[in-house]
């Protein structure tokens, strides 16, 4: 049993066949994986810096009931349920036109509700914040799973999809056509839009995010409204999570949020460098992930996360500053010097 569990490694099957025989298929999966990991990684860098990694975990779970409610409302509003067999004819159905909007609104609502409930429990009772996070996201997630089971005909999600996504199905959907030319699968286009938006917002508000993440006091003295920055980041997070949700599932999104940032922060102390590392990791992860999944015949999204985790492991062991190998040698580390970019900003103001 166990010997047949891990398939034999066949170079041609694993590395050549996917691109030779199914190249058109896998290019979109790789692109989708890269876009998801890039967007998640960029937002995740800030989550890690702000010690909000578990808020990312919470939101990625609690987006589910928002999505489910969004779908149910949309289906009731559009009158009637869609059947998978008729997708082709239904591609211009109002359900499909308005689906992204319903998803987006549902996710934003769920994200806001999560933040609000956590604050409520944590501020009004003596229950600590960690317990509050655990209670809120598990409740909402349970609610979401029940909604999907009860309204299976109205929600385009199933239990497996919730757990590990359906990234393999991305290129199977009818391509979006503009002016008669079919461009790309709709999910890829949407994810590309979200990723570009994330990059745009981060580069526009780079200074605000940076300062308020590292030095809230300096941020306040520069007139940056910390609450606005916080909720803005939460909104981007909800947006990224909900777009990645269908392809990667609730829990793997957490990995894509945290792994690139965690790996990058082991390799560099400078935020721009960390972001570049995150993007490099996104590219390696998505391509090697596909090959791993082809070799092992397992879920592609999960395999991408496993590759990401291996990269983290490598960074952890061989990192020049504080890696496990480095720990074996005596060394000194200067922890007190503030970050150069913060110093620069402090001097400017």
């Amino acid at each position, binding site marked *: *049993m*166990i010997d*047949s*569990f*891990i398939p034999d490694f066949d170079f041609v099957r694993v590395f050549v066949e996917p691109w030779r025989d199914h190249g058109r298929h896998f290019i979109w999966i790789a692109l989708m994986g890269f876009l998801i990991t890039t967007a998640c990684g960029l937002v995740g860098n800030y989550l*890690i810096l702000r*010690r*909000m*990694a*578990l808020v*990312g*975990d919470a939101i990625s779970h609690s987006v589910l009931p928002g999505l489910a409610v969004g779908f149910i409302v949309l289906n009731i509003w559009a009158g009637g349920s869609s059947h998978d067999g008729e997708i082709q004819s239904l591609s211009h159905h109002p359900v499909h036109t308005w689906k992204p909007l319903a998803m987006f609104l549902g996710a934003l609502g769920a994200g806001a509700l999560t933040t609000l409930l956590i604050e409520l429990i944590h501020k*009004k*009772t*003596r*229950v*600590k914040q*960690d*317990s509050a*996070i*655990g*209670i809120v996201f*598990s*409740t909402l*997630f*349970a*609610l979401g*799973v*029940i909604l999907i*089971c009860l309204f299976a005909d109205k929600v385009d999600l199933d*239990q497996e999809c919730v*757990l*590990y996504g359906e990234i393999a199905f991305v290129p199977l959907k009818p391509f979006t056509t503009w002016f008669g030319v079919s461009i790309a699968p709709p999910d890829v286009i949407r994810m590309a839009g979200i990723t570009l938006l994330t990059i745009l917002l981060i580069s526009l508000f780079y200074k605000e995010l940076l300062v308020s993440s590292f030095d809230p006091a300096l941020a306040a003295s520069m007139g940056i409204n910390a609450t606005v920055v916080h909720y803005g980041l939460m909104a981007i997070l909800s947006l990224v999570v909900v777009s990645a949700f269908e392809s990667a599932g*609730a*829990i*793997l999104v*957490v*990995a894509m*949020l*945290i*792994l690139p940032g*965690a790996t990058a*922060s*082991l390799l560099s102390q400078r935020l721009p460098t960390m972001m570049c590392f995150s993007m490099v990791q996104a590219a390696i992860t998505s391509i090697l992930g596909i090959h791993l*999944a082809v070799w*092992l*015949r*397992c*879920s592609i*999204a*999960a395999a991408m*996360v*496993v590759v*990401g*985790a291996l990269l*983290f492991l490598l960074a*952890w062991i061989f*990192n020049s500053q*504080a890696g496990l190998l480095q*720990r074996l040698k005596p060394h000194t580390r200067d922890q007190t010097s503030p970050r150069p970019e913060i110093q620069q900003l402090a001097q400017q103001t």
Partner: protein
Amino acid sequence: MLLLIACIPAEAAKISEISETSIGDQALRFFSFRDPSLRYALIGSILLGITCGLMGSFIVVRKMALMGDALSHAVLPGVALGFLWNTTKDPVAILVGATVAGLLGTIVVGLITQTTRLKEDTAIGLVLATFFAVGICMVTMIQHLPTGNKSGIDKFLFGQAAAIGPEDIRVMAVVTVVVIALVIVFYKEFLVTSFDPAFARSVGFPAGWFHHGLMLLLAFAVVIALQAVGVVLVSAMLITPAAAAYLLTDRLRHMLILAALLGMAAGVLGAFISFLGNNLPTGPFMVLGSSLAFGLAFLFAPRHGVLRRWLHERSRDHRIQRENTLKAMYHVLEAREFRGENVAIRELAERRHETAEEAKEETTQLQKHGLVTLHDDGNGIVFTPDGWQRACSIVRNHRLWELYLTSEAHLAADHVHEDAEKIEHVLGEEVVMELEKGLRYATKDPHGRSIPSLQDIRRPAQEGPGELIGYGRKL
């Protein structure tokens, strides 16, 4: 109870064979305990409720709730390996695999926080998602295997109480008994290491060992709950009933019992509801059941509930309001050197910078509490003995505190009023006596005004309600 349920002869079919029956019939079936798989599901839910409640209490008071989350996700690869051991749902193999994987997860979290600059929350999220991804890879690989009975593995994700069999129950019962026994034997040690780790270390408890022991028991609790609740939501069965119990009591002993009871109730409720609707996953319903318990505790808990706190705060605000009005009356009387006892509403309103209506409303409140009596068709008010006592003690608190701040804390006299405004309502009798003694029974506050003495406060009460006139003359 286990024996009793097991003795009832098995005559009904499996849950999965029930198709279209009414909810009433289903409920009847559930409570008649005739169905053997139903009995197993019920016993399983009770056992998991007890274990999760007990172990959850410890992680909630230790602020390690999310460590429970990490551990519960980290067991998935272990479950898959245990499943692979002989391709069936062998409960012992799964128990061993899941426990090892869960413990490995907690150890990796510890290693990452110790050896890198990543914080614990990042480490938890990282381990949680990575282990889960490895698990998902293995689960999907198992599902693609050409041979073998692979039907059971997906039930571990969202839980299906109906999949619990007699061997599972045996393992669950043994583990539950072990967990309960260990908690009883090491109760004192767990108590100390949970609430005062520094003290525990100073008296020589091996805190590290207790941490790992607790993680082992936690892994047991997770494994027990796996089958019915599923990997994804197990952490909720740990955290939520325990957090509800945490709001209901202040004693760890009571909290443990309450959390176990709540966990049991949520488990049975979840099993029942998922049985009513065919083929619904059990885990989410159990989680919603415990969330319901938490919601009720959140609102109505006797001491820590939101409702109780709100009422408490409201009554405190009203008391402070009354005390401020009484103080203003005292100031009015003091300004005319206590000639005449009648305070006009108009004077009070001027003193408090309010409209006459507002002042009137406040005096009505005072009258309701028996602190003043109304005169001149409601336009004048007179202290009752109780009211006079309250007014004197508030003014006394205020002025003593101001004096204390200027003489002992060396604050400027014009900086102390704000602070005294707040503290005057909460100083207790003993503290005030202590203050008075420390200030050598001073009679004047920093602004040169008299501080009412204990005699002034007690006087009218001793003289009775008829002897009101002239109570302030001594000042």
